[in-house]
């Protein structure tokens, strides 16, 4: 399993956090621009999925896949959006993202008063914990 990168957005579309582990190709634009593009696409996919779905969509947009990578999307009820790019064969990424929200984001961002809500996360502890978490997942899922 290979995890390429992660984006965390809040409800207002602010990029709270970005990290990559295994990214071979860069988009050739600044991180801010890339984040805007990403958020715009997610927003469009979400409304597209909601409109085009023949059933009442319960969970909405979950992921998409190209022949090279898969993008997994998890949104908490509070509108925090987690976007994880992996290789295409990885399973159960949704559980992983949910766990990431619970065990890492809530514990080390929400419960850390140094982290202002709606501002990019600069906490070193969060960074370390997230990195540990992802590396652990990569190891156990191999």
């Amino acid at each position, binding site marked *: 399993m290979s995890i390429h990168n992660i984006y965390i957005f809040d*409800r*207002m*579309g602010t990029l709270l956090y970005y990290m990559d582990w295994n990214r071979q190709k860069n988009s050739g634009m600044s991180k801010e621009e890339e984040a*805007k593009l990403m*958020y*715009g696409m997610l*927003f469009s996919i979400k409304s597209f999925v909601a409109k085009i779905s023949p059933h009442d969509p319960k969970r909405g947009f979950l992921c998409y896949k190209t022949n090279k990578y898969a993008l997994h999307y998890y949104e*908490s*009820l*509070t*509108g*925090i959006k987690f976007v994880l790019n992996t290789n295409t064969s990885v399973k159960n990424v949704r559980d992983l993202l949910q766990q990431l*929200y*619970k*065990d890492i*984001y*809530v*514990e080390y961002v*929400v*419960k850390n008063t140094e982290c202002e*809500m709606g501002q990019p996360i600069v906490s070193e502890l969060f960074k370390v914990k997230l990195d540990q978490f992802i590396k652990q997942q990569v190891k156990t899922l191999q």
Partner: protein
Amino acid sequence: MSRQSTRLDVKKVNSELFTLTYGAIVSQLMKDYENVEDVNKQLDRMGYNIGVRMVEDFLARTNSARCNDLRETADKIQYAFKMYLGITPALTNWSAAGDEFSLTFDSNPLTEFVELPDNYQNLKYSNVLCGALRGSCEMVQMDVSCWFAQDQLKGDLATELRIKFNKRLEDAIPAGED
């Protein structure tokens, strides 16, 4: 790191510690602002800031799904009171349209050991709860108003917290390319 090991179990603390800490905050605010209206406002603001964080903890712990109507929300709020304050308020006084209800409690842990001096009758002592409710609901895309309709501190028989649903909030639209 102790934080790691104690992470997900619910830590129980004596409610008296909480009551007294809250009392200390209110009395400090009274000293700082010397004006009941300002203190009410500050308590509401503090509550709001607590609420926007607390709701994430609540969701992470309860694995809640999105509520389909206000009654479900009311049940969740009732459960949250149990979780965070150890009391189960009654859900009463539903409005005909179903967009307003009350939480009624016989005892309020915030106001234990508390009596209001005569000249502070306008102080909304537990106003932090209103702010917390408003903050948490806002984070799950609900705009609500909360206020105390009755308060035991003011001689009423029960404490009644009234909640009114105003509207749903939507995600921000991405900024257009300029």
